[in-house]
């Protein structure tokens, strides 16, 4: 048989624990499972830390949403529902690995150590991202869908030629992004040069109002195979599975076997952004179903049930979360507007006399009002 026969395993909308292709280490009910390919060795403290990450991230996200509602931010892209995918994958990274995010990777930024208020600067409209990408090994947020996947591959190609360096790159993108030419060219280049890059696709099932089924008629993790590298689907609401699979993928790419695609199957529980109104295009039912698979609840259930954490622990995390929210709120509302002339900075690394002249003339123009 020469026709390359298809596994038409169309993703059931509710791909859950029953989906054999889905890697899951923690059920929605908080039960641990083992997976032959993706063992996970974590001590108890590490699991508590993951829980803390998830809770703090969600609290940050909630606060940012509130800040937007109150007019302190221009817009906010909620991570609600995708916390496990981001925390699990980003906690698998080494400090020296490099991450390329979209605009929604607040959990990744958190794990990279970026102070959350720095993220708000972008959404407040003060700058395009307040952190130093080289310091935190997190590229600037990228809004043009898919464009950064090529940067990630190029960065990985550069890493590859550094002797004795097995650092890796991870790049985040969505189910919608998978349709962009750039993402597919990133697959081509990564495969061609065997680049040490993990493609981390958060399939939250929606690209704004467009369902995943419009982007692909087969599960997206299978795309990788057509380009000659492996793809895995993981339960994106399971922080342990996301950690284990990303860890395995990183090992794969570090060891010179080339790129790896992870599809984290998850759900965007909020609106696309605070400007969006999902009631126009999806049923509330769907959300209710996904609430039962909440990425935080299952860790909490596991920790309690197995006695790894007690009420005091949970309470202390909550306290910490409130403190974080307070800190972020006051940082946000007290951010000064930038100096107008700062907009002329950093257009060129080695200058432009033409632009200097524009800056001077605008400074004079502004001054003319001062004098009036």
């Amino acid at each position, binding site marked *: 048989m020469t026709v390359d026969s298809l596994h038409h395993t169309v993703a059931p909308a509710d791909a859950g624990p029953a989906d054999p292709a889905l890697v899951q280490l923690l059920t929605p009910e908080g039960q641990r499972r083992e997976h032959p390919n993706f063992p996970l060795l974590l001590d108890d403290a590490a699991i508590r830390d993951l829980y803390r990450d998830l809770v703090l991230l969600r609290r940050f996200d909630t606060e940012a949403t509130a800040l937007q509602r109150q007019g302190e931010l*221009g*817009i906010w892209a909620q991570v609600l529902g995708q916390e496990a995918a981001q925390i699990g994958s980003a906690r698998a990274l080494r400090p020296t690995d490099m991450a390329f995010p979209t*605009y929604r990777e607040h959990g990744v930024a958190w794990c990279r150590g970026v102070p959350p208020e720095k993220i708000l600067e*972008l*959404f*407040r*409209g*003060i*700058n*395009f991202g307040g952190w130093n990408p080289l310091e935190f090994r997190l590229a600037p947020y990228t*809004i*043009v*869908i898919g464009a950064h996947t090529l940067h990630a591959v190029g960065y990985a190609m550069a890493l590859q030629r550094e002797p004795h360096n097995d650092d890796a790159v991870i790049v985040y993108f969505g189910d*919608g*992004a998978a*349709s*962009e*030419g*750039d993402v597919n060219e990133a697959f081509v280049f990564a495969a061609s040069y065997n680049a040490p890059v993990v493609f981390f696709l958060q399939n939250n099932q929606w*690209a*704004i*109002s*467009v369902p995943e089924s*419009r*982007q692909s008629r087969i599960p997206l993790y299978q795309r990788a195979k057509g380009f000659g590298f492996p793809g895995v689907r993981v339960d994106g609401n399971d922080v342990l599975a996301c950690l284990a699979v990303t860890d395995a993928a990183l090992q794969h790419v570090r060891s010179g076997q080339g790129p790896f695609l992870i599809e984290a199957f998850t759900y965007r529980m909020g609106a696309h952004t605070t*400007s*969006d*109104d999902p009631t*126009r*295009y999806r049923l509330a039912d769907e959300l209710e179903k996904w609430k039962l698979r909440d990425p935080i609840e299952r860790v909490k259930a596991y920790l309690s049930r197995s006695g790894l954490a007690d009420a005091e622990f949970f309470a202390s995390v909550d306290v910490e979360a409130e403190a974080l929210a307070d800190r972020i709120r006051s940082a946000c509302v007290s951010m000064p*507007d*930038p100096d*107008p002339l*700062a*907009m*002329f900075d950093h*257009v060129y690394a080695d200058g*432009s006399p*033409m*632009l200097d002249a*524009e800056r001077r003339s*605008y400074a004079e*123009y502004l001054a003319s009002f001062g004098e009036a």
Partner: protein
Amino acid sequence: MATLALARALNLGLRRALESDPRVVIMGEDVGKLGGVFRVTDGLQRDFGEDRVMDTPLAESGIVGTAIGMALRGLRPICEIQFDGFVFPAYDQIVNQLAKLHYRSRGTLTVPLVIRIPFGGGIGAVEHHSESPEALFAHIPGLKVVACGNAADAYTMIQQAVACDDPVIFFEPKRRYWERAEVDTDAPLDQAFPLTAARVVREGRDVTLLAYGPSVKLALDAAAAAAEEGREIEVIDVRSLSPLDFHTISSSVSRTGRCVVVHEAPVFLGFGAELAARITESCFYRLEAPVLRVGGFSIPYPPSRLEEHYLPDVDKILDAVDRTFSY
């Protein structure tokens, strides 16, 4: 007559186009159930079905490229690009294919395709949501490039663009989407003001102010302010950047002898450059002052908290007008 917001006028214009020609289809990201992020296509998929109003995969080159193919088979697609900054992945299809297919095939193929692009700043958005890329299209032969500036024009021009047998890049002033104006929704399309004509929107004898899209309102505001000080500004809504209705413009400047151009795009090689060069060429002896340009600086569109400094405003326009009197 109805009082309509610009976005709503476009919506009605699109509805008309869908009703009157079964070959018309709308395609793009989120144009279906959501009705577009600005609600310009609100309710159209519900009323015309998924075959006429199609949500596409997230790929702009794919949207324009497949729309070209559909047009080759007789359809008349209207593509929505969600924001100005996201048209660039489709730029190759637009410049190398869409603009040239009629020419390359020596007229045997026509590609009646409209690309709607909400453009410009002023809405406090994040990166890539406030660009004014019109010059990058107006420089390309084979494209028609138009911009509407008010609800009445929006309603008419979108229908004319759809009826046009050439590819039309249709710029919509996103910060004006919610501004309302009187629209005569019953006027017959074939007697409407031509799509590619410029329009004098306020008469004046002292100086000519040229604007299009979101800047037309600014220009009118500036003219009103100047009138209080006794200076009469003539305002022209350029409307069609390519082909350019230069006659309307040069007649005005020949009379006034002074001209200021306003747009949000960077001044450097912005559309104002062509207007200034061309006006100087044809009105050389009439000009009392060089054509001055008010527009963006040579910087990427800045973060939103600085956009008021970047954007043209009434003060900047009046300052330039004043300067034309100091030569």
